Protein backbone atom coordinates (compact mmCIF):
# COMPACT_ATOMS: atom_id res chain seq x y z
CA UNK A 1 0.00 0.00 0.00
CA UNK A 2 1.37 3.44 -0.86
CA UNK A 3 0.85 6.64 1.10
CA UNK A 4 -2.16 8.63 -0.12
CA UNK A 5 -2.76 12.37 0.20
CA UNK A 6 -5.82 14.54 -0.20
CA UNK A 7 -4.73 17.39 -2.47
CA UNK A 8 -8.01 19.16 -3.13
CA UNK A 9 -11.46 19.58 -1.60
CA UNK A 10 -14.62 21.42 -2.54
CA UNK A 11 -18.16 21.74 -1.33
CA UNK A 12 -21.54 23.18 -2.16
CA UNK A 13 -23.06 25.30 0.64
CA UNK A 14 -25.38 23.26 2.84
CA UNK A 15 -29.03 24.16 3.22
CA UNK A 16 -32.29 24.42 1.32
CA UNK A 17 -31.90 24.61 -2.46
CA UNK A 18 -35.35 23.71 -3.76
CA UNK A 19 -34.71 24.31 -7.44
CA UNK A 20 -31.33 22.58 -7.60
CA UNK A 21 -31.19 18.90 -8.64
CA UNK A 22 -28.54 16.42 -7.53
CA UNK A 23 -26.15 17.10 -10.41
CA UNK A 24 -26.30 20.87 -9.90
CA UNK A 25 -25.43 20.41 -6.22
CA UNK A 26 -22.50 18.15 -7.09
CA UNK A 27 -20.98 20.35 -9.82
CA UNK A 28 -19.46 23.15 -7.66
CA UNK A 29 -18.16 20.59 -5.17
CA UNK A 30 -16.48 18.54 -7.91
CA UNK A 31 -14.94 21.51 -9.71
CA UNK A 32 -14.02 23.14 -6.42
CA UNK A 33 -12.01 20.03 -5.55
CA UNK A 34 -10.44 19.69 -9.03
CA UNK A 35 -9.31 23.33 -9.10
CA UNK A 36 -8.14 23.23 -5.49
CA UNK A 37 -6.01 20.18 -6.38
CA UNK A 38 -4.71 21.60 -9.63
CA UNK A 39 -5.95 18.63 -11.64
CA UNK A 40 -8.13 18.33 -14.74
CA UNK A 41 -10.85 15.73 -15.42
CA UNK A 42 -8.33 13.84 -17.60
CA UNK A 43 -6.10 13.27 -14.54
CA UNK A 44 -8.85 11.42 -12.61
CA UNK A 45 -8.34 7.65 -12.79
CA UNK A 46 -11.49 6.60 -10.96
CA UNK A 47 -14.40 8.20 -9.10
CA UNK A 48 -16.51 6.97 -6.18
CA UNK A 49 -19.84 8.76 -5.71
CA UNK A 50 -21.75 8.50 -2.43
CA UNK A 51 -25.47 9.15 -2.16
CA UNK A 52 -28.16 7.64 0.00
CA UNK A 53 -31.67 8.90 -0.71
CA UNK A 54 -31.91 10.04 -4.35
CA UNK A 55 -33.67 6.84 -5.39
CA UNK A 56 -36.61 7.38 -3.06
CA UNK A 57 -36.59 11.19 -3.08
CA UNK A 58 -35.78 12.14 -6.67
CA UNK A 59 -36.55 8.90 -8.53
CA UNK A 60 -32.94 8.59 -9.78
CA UNK A 61 -32.65 5.02 -8.57
CA UNK A 62 -29.55 3.99 -10.50
CA UNK A 63 -26.36 5.40 -12.08
CA UNK A 64 -26.40 8.52 -9.89
CA UNK A 65 -22.62 8.81 -10.04
CA UNK A 66 -22.50 8.68 -13.81
CA UNK A 67 -25.32 11.27 -14.00
CA UNK A 68 -23.63 13.81 -11.72
CA UNK A 69 -20.15 13.31 -13.16
CA UNK A 70 -21.18 13.51 -16.82
CA UNK A 71 -22.98 16.77 -15.98
CA UNK A 72 -19.65 18.04 -14.62
CA UNK A 73 -17.69 16.92 -17.68
CA UNK A 74 -16.16 13.69 -16.37
CA UNK A 75 -16.73 10.97 -18.97
CA UNK A 76 -15.42 7.53 -19.69
CA UNK A 77 -13.63 6.87 -16.41
CA UNK A 78 -14.60 4.05 -14.04
CA UNK A 79 -17.36 5.30 -11.72
CA UNK A 80 -18.51 3.40 -8.64
CA UNK A 81 -21.83 4.25 -6.97
CA UNK A 82 -21.75 4.03 -3.18
CA UNK A 83 -24.74 3.75 -0.86
CA UNK A 84 -24.01 3.35 2.85
CA UNK A 85 -26.71 5.46 4.51
CA UNK A 86 -25.31 8.51 6.34
CA UNK A 87 -21.80 7.02 5.93
CA UNK A 88 -22.02 6.98 2.10
CA UNK A 89 -19.50 9.77 1.51
CA UNK A 90 -16.90 8.38 3.93
CA UNK A 91 -17.32 5.02 2.22
CA UNK A 92 -16.76 6.70 -1.15
CA UNK A 93 -13.59 8.26 0.25
CA UNK A 94 -12.41 4.82 1.36
CA UNK A 95 -12.95 3.41 -2.12
CA UNK A 96 -10.95 6.22 -3.69
CA UNK A 97 -8.21 5.80 -1.04
CA UNK A 98 -7.88 2.06 -1.72
CA UNK A 99 -7.64 2.65 -5.49
CA UNK A 100 -4.70 5.01 -5.04
CA UNK A 101 -3.10 3.07 -2.16
CA UNK A 102 -3.16 -0.14 -4.19
CA UNK A 103 -1.47 1.52 -7.15
CA UNK A 104 -4.44 0.89 -9.47
CA UNK A 105 -4.64 4.62 -10.21
CA UNK A 106 -2.55 7.68 -9.33
CA UNK A 107 -5.43 10.13 -8.85
CA UNK A 108 -8.97 9.43 -7.63
CA UNK A 109 -12.07 11.50 -6.95
CA UNK A 110 -14.53 10.96 -4.07
CA UNK A 111 -17.90 12.73 -4.17
CA UNK A 112 -20.83 12.82 -1.76
CA UNK A 113 -24.10 14.46 -2.74
CA UNK A 114 -27.62 14.56 -1.31
CA UNK A 115 -30.90 16.26 -2.24
CA UNK A 116 -33.30 16.06 0.72
CA UNK A 117 -35.60 19.07 0.21
CA UNK A 118 -38.34 17.77 -2.08
CA UNK A 119 -41.21 19.90 -0.79
CA UNK A 120 -42.65 17.20 1.49
CA UNK A 121 -40.86 16.66 4.79
CA UNK A 122 -42.94 13.56 5.71
CA UNK A 123 -41.60 11.93 2.53
CA UNK A 124 -38.04 12.90 3.45
CA UNK A 125 -38.50 11.52 6.97
CA UNK A 126 -39.94 8.35 5.43
CA UNK A 127 -36.87 8.03 3.22
CA UNK A 128 -34.58 8.54 6.22
CA UNK A 129 -36.49 5.83 8.07
CA UNK A 130 -35.86 3.55 5.09
CA UNK A 131 -32.12 3.54 5.78
CA UNK A 132 -33.03 1.32 8.71
CA UNK A 133 -33.56 -2.37 8.01
CA UNK A 134 -36.99 -2.71 6.39
CA UNK A 135 -38.38 -4.73 9.31
CA UNK A 136 -37.80 -1.67 11.52
CA UNK A 137 -39.07 1.02 9.16
CA UNK A 138 -42.20 -0.97 8.25
CA UNK A 139 -42.89 -1.33 11.97
CA UNK A 140 -42.98 2.46 12.22
CA UNK A 141 -39.61 3.11 13.81
CA UNK A 142 -38.95 6.88 13.63
CA UNK A 143 -35.18 7.08 13.05
CA UNK A 144 -34.84 9.95 15.56
CA UNK A 145 -35.89 7.48 18.26
CA UNK A 146 -32.68 5.57 17.62
CA UNK A 147 -30.89 8.57 19.20
CA UNK A 148 -33.27 8.64 22.21
CA UNK A 149 -34.30 5.18 23.41
CA UNK A 150 -32.27 2.71 21.37
CA UNK A 151 -30.25 0.33 23.55
CA UNK A 152 -27.02 1.82 22.12
CA UNK A 153 -27.99 5.44 22.89
CA UNK A 154 -30.56 5.35 25.67
CA UNK A 155 -30.71 8.95 26.87
CA UNK A 156 -33.17 8.17 29.63
CA UNK A 157 -30.68 5.74 31.17
CA UNK A 158 -28.04 8.50 30.92
CA UNK A 159 -30.36 10.83 32.83
CA UNK A 160 -30.92 8.12 35.44
CA UNK A 161 -27.34 6.84 35.77
CA UNK A 162 -25.28 10.04 35.33
CA UNK A 163 -27.73 12.83 36.06
CA UNK A 164 -27.60 14.21 32.52
CA UNK A 165 -30.23 16.88 31.90
CA UNK A 166 -31.92 18.47 28.91
CA UNK A 167 -29.41 21.32 29.29
CA UNK A 168 -26.57 18.78 28.90
CA UNK A 169 -28.15 17.41 25.72
CA UNK A 170 -28.30 20.99 24.40
CA UNK A 171 -24.64 21.81 25.07
CA UNK A 172 -23.19 20.34 21.84
CA UNK A 173 -25.86 22.14 19.79
CA UNK A 174 -24.98 25.48 21.42
CA UNK A 175 -21.22 24.93 21.05
CA UNK A 176 -21.60 23.88 17.42
CA UNK A 177 -23.96 26.77 16.59
CA UNK A 178 -21.12 29.13 17.54
CA UNK A 179 -18.79 27.28 15.14
CA UNK A 180 -21.49 27.29 12.46
CA UNK A 181 -21.95 31.04 12.88
CA UNK A 182 -18.37 31.42 11.60
CA UNK A 183 -18.88 29.09 8.62
CA UNK A 184 -20.27 30.82 5.52
CA UNK A 185 -21.08 27.39 4.00
CA UNK A 186 -23.18 26.27 7.00
CA UNK A 187 -26.92 25.70 6.83
CA UNK A 188 -27.59 27.38 10.20
CA UNK A 189 -25.40 30.35 11.10
CA UNK A 190 -27.31 31.67 14.09
CA UNK A 191 -25.86 31.28 17.59
CA UNK A 192 -28.17 29.41 19.95
CA UNK A 193 -28.59 29.49 23.73
CA UNK A 194 -29.20 26.53 26.04
CA UNK A 195 -32.68 27.88 26.83
CA UNK A 196 -33.63 28.18 23.15
CA UNK A 197 -32.50 24.63 22.40
CA UNK A 198 -34.21 23.10 25.43
CA UNK A 199 -37.44 25.03 24.83
CA UNK A 200 -37.74 24.38 21.09
CA UNK A 201 -40.49 21.91 20.25
CA UNK A 202 -40.05 18.23 21.07
CA UNK A 203 -39.40 15.96 18.09
CA UNK A 204 -38.85 12.68 19.93
CA UNK A 205 -38.74 13.10 23.70
CA UNK A 206 -36.20 14.14 25.08
CA UNK A 207 -34.83 15.44 21.73
CA UNK A 208 -35.97 18.91 20.72
CA UNK A 209 -35.95 20.41 17.24
CA UNK A 210 -32.73 22.38 17.79
CA UNK A 211 -30.95 19.22 19.00
CA UNK A 212 -31.62 17.57 15.62
CA UNK A 213 -29.79 18.01 12.35
CA UNK A 214 -32.23 19.31 9.76
CA UNK A 215 -33.25 18.33 6.25
CA UNK A 216 -30.48 19.54 4.02
CA UNK A 217 -29.15 19.65 0.45
CA UNK A 218 -25.42 19.66 -0.20
CA UNK A 219 -22.37 18.10 -1.78
CA UNK A 220 -18.66 17.69 -1.15
CA UNK A 221 -15.71 16.22 -3.02
CA UNK A 222 -12.06 15.37 -2.51
CA UNK A 223 -9.21 14.63 -4.91
CA UNK A 224 -6.72 12.00 -3.71
CA UNK A 225 -3.35 11.12 -5.18
CA UNK A 226 -0.27 9.09 -4.38
CA UNK A 227 1.52 11.19 -1.76
CA UNK A 228 4.78 11.26 -3.73
CA UNK A 229 2.95 12.75 -6.74
CA UNK A 230 1.30 15.59 -4.81
CA UNK A 231 3.94 18.25 -5.64
CA UNK A 232 3.30 17.58 -9.34
CA UNK A 233 -0.20 19.09 -8.98
CA UNK A 234 -0.20 21.55 -6.10
CA UNK A 235 2.01 23.55 -3.76
CA UNK A 236 -0.54 23.28 -0.94
CA UNK A 237 0.19 21.03 2.05
CA UNK A 238 -0.79 17.49 1.11
CA UNK A 239 -3.01 15.96 3.82
CA UNK A 240 -2.18 12.29 4.40
CA UNK A 241 -4.83 9.65 5.00
CA UNK A 242 -3.19 7.91 7.97
CA UNK A 243 -6.03 5.40 8.28
CA UNK A 244 -9.47 4.88 6.85
CA UNK A 245 -11.58 2.26 8.62
CA UNK A 246 -14.99 0.93 7.68
CA UNK A 247 -16.98 -1.45 9.86
CA UNK A 248 -20.51 -2.78 9.77
CA UNK A 249 -22.61 -3.14 12.88
CA UNK A 250 -22.76 -6.42 14.78
CA UNK A 251 -25.82 -8.37 15.95
CA UNK A 252 -26.20 -7.54 19.62
CA UNK A 253 -28.26 -9.36 22.21
CA UNK A 254 -29.22 -7.81 25.57
CA UNK A 255 -26.24 -7.94 27.92
CA UNK A 256 -23.75 -7.94 25.03
CA UNK A 257 -20.44 -7.12 26.74
CA UNK A 258 -18.52 -6.26 23.56
CA UNK A 259 -17.47 -2.63 23.13
CA UNK A 260 -19.71 -0.34 21.07
CA UNK A 261 -19.02 -0.37 17.31
CA UNK A 262 -18.23 3.37 17.34
CA UNK A 263 -15.48 2.49 19.82
CA UNK A 264 -14.08 -0.48 17.91
CA UNK A 265 -14.01 1.42 14.61
CA UNK A 266 -12.31 4.46 16.18
CA UNK A 267 -9.70 2.38 17.97
CA UNK A 268 -9.01 0.38 14.81
CA UNK A 269 -8.34 3.72 13.11
CA UNK A 270 -6.05 4.88 15.95
CA UNK A 271 -4.09 1.64 15.74
CA UNK A 272 -3.65 1.71 11.98
CA UNK A 273 -2.59 5.38 12.10
CA UNK A 274 -0.25 4.80 15.05
CA UNK A 275 -1.87 7.55 17.13
CA UNK A 276 -3.93 7.68 20.33
CA UNK A 277 -6.99 9.75 21.31
CA UNK A 278 -4.72 12.28 23.10
CA UNK A 279 -2.94 13.02 19.81
CA UNK A 280 -6.06 14.37 18.07
CA UNK A 281 -6.12 18.15 17.56
CA UNK A 282 -9.50 18.42 15.81
CA UNK A 283 -12.45 16.09 15.24
CA UNK A 284 -15.47 16.20 12.98
CA UNK A 285 -17.96 13.65 14.32
CA UNK A 286 -21.44 12.38 13.58
CA UNK A 287 -23.73 14.51 15.79
CA UNK A 288 -26.93 13.79 13.83
CA UNK A 289 -28.65 14.54 17.15
CA UNK A 290 -26.76 16.79 19.58
CA UNK A 291 -26.51 14.33 22.51
CA UNK A 292 -24.83 11.81 20.17
CA UNK A 293 -21.75 14.04 20.38
CA UNK A 294 -21.62 13.47 24.15
CA UNK A 295 -21.85 9.69 23.66
CA UNK A 296 -19.16 9.80 20.97
CA UNK A 297 -16.72 11.63 23.29
CA UNK A 298 -16.74 8.44 25.37
CA UNK A 299 -16.62 6.08 22.45
CA UNK A 300 -13.70 7.83 20.74
CA UNK A 301 -11.78 7.62 24.02
CA UNK A 302 -11.85 11.34 24.88
CA UNK A 303 -13.40 10.83 28.33
CA UNK A 304 -14.81 8.19 30.68
CA UNK A 305 -18.42 7.08 30.54
CA UNK A 306 -20.87 9.75 31.65
CA UNK A 307 -18.33 12.59 31.49
CA UNK A 308 -19.28 14.01 28.09
CA UNK A 309 -20.94 17.24 29.27
CA UNK A 310 -17.80 18.11 31.29
CA UNK A 311 -15.73 18.32 28.08
CA UNK A 312 -17.90 21.21 26.91
CA UNK A 313 -18.21 22.82 30.37
CA UNK A 314 -14.40 22.85 30.65
CA UNK A 315 -14.00 24.07 27.06
CA UNK A 316 -11.97 21.03 25.97
CA UNK A 317 -13.94 20.60 22.72
CA UNK A 318 -14.83 24.22 21.94
CA UNK A 319 -13.11 25.97 19.04
CA UNK A 320 -10.47 27.35 21.45
CA UNK A 321 -10.12 24.04 23.32
CA UNK A 322 -7.45 21.34 23.38
CA UNK A 323 -9.35 19.23 20.85
CA UNK A 324 -12.04 21.22 19.05
CA UNK A 325 -14.96 19.04 17.96
CA UNK A 326 -17.08 19.91 14.93
CA UNK A 327 -15.35 23.19 14.04
CA UNK A 328 -17.55 23.33 10.91
CA UNK A 329 -20.68 23.46 13.07
CA UNK A 330 -21.21 19.71 12.81
CA UNK A 331 -24.30 18.02 11.49
CA UNK A 332 -26.69 20.23 13.49
CA UNK A 333 -25.32 23.61 12.29
CA UNK A 334 -23.17 22.98 9.21
CA UNK A 335 -25.90 20.61 8.00
CA UNK A 336 -26.39 16.92 7.31
CA UNK A 337 -27.15 16.20 3.64
CA UNK A 338 -26.75 12.55 4.55
CA UNK A 339 -24.83 11.14 1.57
CA UNK A 340 -22.47 14.14 1.53
CA UNK A 341 -21.70 14.45 5.24
CA UNK A 342 -18.60 12.24 5.41
CA UNK A 343 -16.84 14.35 2.79
CA UNK A 344 -18.10 17.65 4.25
CA UNK A 345 -16.24 16.54 7.38
CA UNK A 346 -13.09 15.88 5.32
CA UNK A 347 -13.36 19.30 3.62
CA UNK A 348 -13.46 21.03 7.01
CA UNK A 349 -10.48 19.09 8.39
CA UNK A 350 -8.39 19.78 5.26
CA UNK A 351 -9.17 23.50 5.48
CA UNK A 352 -8.29 23.51 9.19
CA UNK A 353 -5.04 21.57 8.63
CA UNK A 354 -3.98 23.95 5.85
CA UNK A 355 -4.89 27.02 7.89
CA UNK A 356 -7.62 28.04 5.43
CA UNK A 357 -10.61 28.00 7.78
CA UNK A 358 -11.03 31.78 8.05
CA UNK A 359 -12.54 33.15 11.26
CA UNK A 360 -13.12 29.64 12.65
CA UNK A 361 -9.47 28.61 12.15
CA UNK A 362 -8.19 26.44 14.99
CA UNK A 363 -5.02 27.94 16.50
CA UNK A 364 -2.47 26.48 16.41
CA UNK A 365 -3.20 24.74 13.12
CA UNK A 366 -4.08 21.04 13.78
CA UNK A 367 -1.77 18.33 12.48
CA UNK A 368 -3.65 15.16 13.52
CA UNK A 369 -7.41 15.04 12.99
CA UNK A 370 -10.30 12.57 12.79
CA UNK A 371 -13.52 12.35 10.80
CA UNK A 372 -16.13 9.98 12.29
CA UNK A 373 -19.20 9.17 10.19
CA UNK A 374 -21.89 6.53 10.72
CA UNK A 375 -25.27 5.54 9.43
CA UNK A 376 -28.22 3.20 9.10
CA UNK A 377 -29.78 0.91 11.66
CA UNK A 378 -30.07 -2.87 11.78
CA UNK A 379 -32.41 -5.25 13.59
CA UNK A 380 -29.37 -6.53 15.50
CA UNK A 381 -29.35 -3.41 17.75
CA UNK A 382 -26.51 -1.60 15.98
CA UNK A 383 -25.89 1.01 13.30
CA UNK A 384 -25.22 -0.37 9.82
CA UNK A 385 -21.98 1.43 8.92
CA UNK A 386 -19.15 3.08 10.85
CA UNK A 387 -16.41 4.99 9.01
CA UNK A 388 -13.42 6.64 10.69
CA UNK A 389 -10.64 8.51 8.89
CA UNK A 390 -7.52 9.91 10.54
CA UNK A 391 -5.62 12.65 8.71
CA UNK A 392 -2.07 13.88 9.31
CA UNK A 393 0.11 16.41 7.52
Amino acid sequence: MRAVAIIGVGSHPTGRFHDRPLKALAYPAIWGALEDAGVTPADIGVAYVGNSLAGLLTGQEGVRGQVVLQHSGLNGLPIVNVENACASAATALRGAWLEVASGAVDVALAVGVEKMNVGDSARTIGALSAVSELDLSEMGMQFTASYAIHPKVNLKSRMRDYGWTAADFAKPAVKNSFNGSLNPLAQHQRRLTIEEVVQSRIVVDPLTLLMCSSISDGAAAAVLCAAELAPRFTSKTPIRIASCVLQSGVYRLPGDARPDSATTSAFAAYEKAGVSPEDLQAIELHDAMAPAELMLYERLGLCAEGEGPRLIDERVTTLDGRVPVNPSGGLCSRGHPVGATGLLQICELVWQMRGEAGTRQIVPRPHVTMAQNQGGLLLGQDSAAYAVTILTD
Partner: protein
Amino acid sequence: MRGPDPDVVRLPSQSGATLCLLGNRCSQCGTVAFPKLPVCPRCGRNETMEEVEIGRTGRLYSHTIAYVAPAGFRAPFFQAFIDLPEGPRIFSLIGSECPVECGALEDGMLMRLVVEPVADTPEQGQKLTYKYVPQDPNNGAPA
Protein backbone atom coordinates in the same frame (compact mmCIF):
# COMPACT_ATOMS: atom_id res chain seq x y z
CA MET B 1 -57.03 -6.66 5.99
CA ARG B 2 -53.56 -8.11 5.31
CA GLY B 3 -51.10 -9.88 7.55
CA PRO B 4 -49.52 -10.19 9.95
CA ASP B 5 -46.73 -12.22 8.35
CA PRO B 6 -47.39 -15.87 9.40
CA ASP B 7 -43.64 -16.40 9.68
CA VAL B 8 -43.44 -13.65 12.34
CA VAL B 9 -46.75 -13.81 14.24
CA ARG B 10 -48.86 -16.91 15.12
CA LEU B 11 -52.49 -15.89 15.50
CA PRO B 12 -54.82 -17.58 18.01
CA SER B 13 -56.42 -20.73 16.62
CA GLN B 14 -59.66 -22.64 17.33
CA SER B 15 -57.58 -25.45 18.81
CA GLY B 16 -56.68 -23.12 21.67
CA ALA B 17 -53.24 -21.81 20.61
CA THR B 18 -52.74 -18.26 21.87
CA LEU B 19 -51.22 -15.27 20.09
CA CYS B 20 -47.40 -15.27 20.02
CA LEU B 21 -44.38 -14.23 17.98
CA LEU B 22 -42.26 -16.75 16.11
CA GLY B 23 -38.53 -16.62 16.68
CA ASN B 24 -35.95 -19.34 16.54
CA ARG B 25 -33.54 -20.87 19.03
CA CYS B 26 -30.07 -22.26 18.44
CA SER B 27 -30.01 -25.96 19.34
CA GLN B 28 -26.29 -25.63 20.20
CA CYS B 29 -26.04 -22.46 22.34
CA GLY B 30 -29.67 -21.65 23.17
CA THR B 31 -29.64 -18.11 21.72
CA VAL B 32 -33.09 -16.92 20.62
CA ALA B 33 -33.43 -14.64 17.58
CA PHE B 34 -36.39 -12.53 16.48
CA PRO B 35 -37.24 -12.21 13.65
CA LYS B 36 -35.95 -15.67 12.73
CA LEU B 37 -32.39 -15.98 11.43
CA PRO B 38 -30.90 -18.84 9.43
CA VAL B 39 -27.54 -18.55 11.23
CA CYS B 40 -27.10 -18.28 15.01
CA PRO B 41 -26.17 -14.65 15.82
CA ARG B 42 -24.08 -15.73 18.82
CA CYS B 43 -22.20 -18.92 17.93
CA GLY B 44 -22.34 -18.45 14.16
CA ARG B 45 -23.38 -22.02 13.40
CA ASN B 46 -25.48 -22.65 10.31
CA GLU B 47 -28.70 -24.71 10.31
CA THR B 48 -28.96 -24.95 14.11
CA MET B 49 -31.91 -22.56 14.50
CA GLU B 50 -35.28 -24.11 15.38
CA GLU B 51 -38.63 -22.31 15.46
CA VAL B 52 -39.90 -21.34 18.89
CA GLU B 53 -42.99 -19.49 20.14
CA ILE B 54 -42.01 -16.33 22.04
CA GLY B 55 -43.13 -12.90 23.17
CA ARG B 56 -46.59 -13.49 24.66
CA THR B 57 -45.41 -11.02 27.30
CA GLY B 58 -42.38 -8.80 27.71
CA ARG B 59 -40.91 -6.02 29.85
CA LEU B 60 -40.71 -2.45 28.60
CA TYR B 61 -36.97 -1.71 28.16
CA SER B 62 -37.32 1.90 26.95
CA HIS B 63 -39.95 4.14 25.42
CA THR B 64 -40.59 7.62 24.13
CA ILE B 65 -43.20 9.68 22.30
CA ALA B 66 -42.38 10.75 18.73
CA TYR B 67 -44.05 14.00 17.69
CA VAL B 68 -42.92 13.75 14.06
CA ALA B 69 -43.97 10.73 12.00
CA PRO B 70 -42.70 9.22 8.75
CA ALA B 71 -45.17 9.10 5.85
CA GLY B 72 -47.97 6.62 6.60
CA PHE B 73 -47.86 7.10 10.37
CA ARG B 74 -49.66 9.55 12.64
CA ALA B 75 -47.90 11.55 15.38
CA PRO B 76 -47.75 11.64 18.31
CA PHE B 77 -47.04 7.94 18.75
CA PHE B 78 -45.08 5.79 21.15
CA GLN B 79 -41.80 4.13 20.18
CA ALA B 80 -40.58 1.32 22.42
CA PHE B 81 -38.13 -1.50 22.94
CA ILE B 82 -39.42 -4.62 24.66
CA ASP B 83 -37.32 -7.25 26.45
CA LEU B 84 -38.83 -10.67 25.76
CA PRO B 85 -38.39 -13.30 28.49
CA GLU B 86 -36.88 -15.64 25.89
CA GLY B 87 -33.96 -13.21 25.26
CA PRO B 88 -34.52 -10.84 22.33
CA ARG B 89 -34.90 -7.07 22.82
CA ILE B 90 -37.20 -5.88 20.04
CA PHE B 91 -38.51 -2.60 18.65
CA SER B 92 -42.30 -2.28 18.87
CA LEU B 93 -45.05 0.27 18.62
CA ILE B 94 -47.53 0.45 21.50
CA GLY B 95 -51.13 -0.73 20.93
CA SER B 96 -53.84 1.90 20.46
CA GLU B 97 -55.66 0.94 23.69
CA CYS B 98 -52.83 2.70 25.55
CA PRO B 99 -53.32 6.50 25.44
CA VAL B 100 -50.35 8.42 23.97
CA GLU B 101 -49.50 10.51 27.00
CA CYS B 102 -46.62 10.94 29.41
CA GLY B 103 -47.05 8.60 32.37
CA ALA B 104 -49.02 5.93 30.50
CA LEU B 105 -45.89 3.77 30.35
CA GLU B 106 -43.04 3.11 32.74
CA ASP B 107 -39.81 1.32 31.86
CA GLY B 108 -39.73 -2.15 33.39
CA MET B 109 -43.51 -2.64 33.32
CA LEU B 110 -45.02 -5.94 32.16
CA MET B 111 -46.37 -5.82 28.60
CA ARG B 112 -48.73 -8.04 26.62
CA LEU B 113 -48.71 -8.86 22.91
CA VAL B 114 -51.57 -7.65 20.68
CA VAL B 115 -52.24 -7.53 16.93
CA GLU B 116 -53.73 -4.46 15.24
CA PRO B 117 -53.30 -2.28 12.12
CA VAL B 118 -49.79 -0.83 11.73
CA ALA B 119 -51.21 2.72 11.95
CA ASP B 120 -54.54 4.47 11.79
CA THR B 121 -53.86 5.90 8.32
CA PRO B 122 -55.09 5.08 4.80
CA GLU B 123 -51.61 3.75 3.90
CA GLN B 124 -51.17 1.45 6.92
CA GLY B 125 -54.72 0.84 8.19
CA GLN B 126 -55.25 -2.35 6.16
CA LYS B 127 -52.07 -4.06 7.33
CA LEU B 128 -51.88 -5.93 10.65
CA THR B 129 -48.79 -6.16 12.83
CA TYR B 130 -47.79 -7.01 16.39
CA LYS B 131 -47.58 -4.39 19.14
CA TYR B 132 -47.42 -4.41 22.92
CA VAL B 133 -49.68 -2.86 25.56
CA PRO B 134 -49.37 -2.72 29.36
CA GLN B 135 -50.48 -6.03 30.90
CA ASP B 136 -52.21 -4.14 33.69
CA PRO B 137 -53.43 -0.84 32.25
CA ASN B 138 -53.46 0.78 35.71
CA ASN B 139 -49.85 -0.04 36.45
CA GLY B 140 -47.83 3.09 35.85
CA ALA B 141 -50.78 5.16 34.69
CA PRO B 142 -51.52 8.40 36.49
CA ALA B 143 -54.13 8.03 39.21
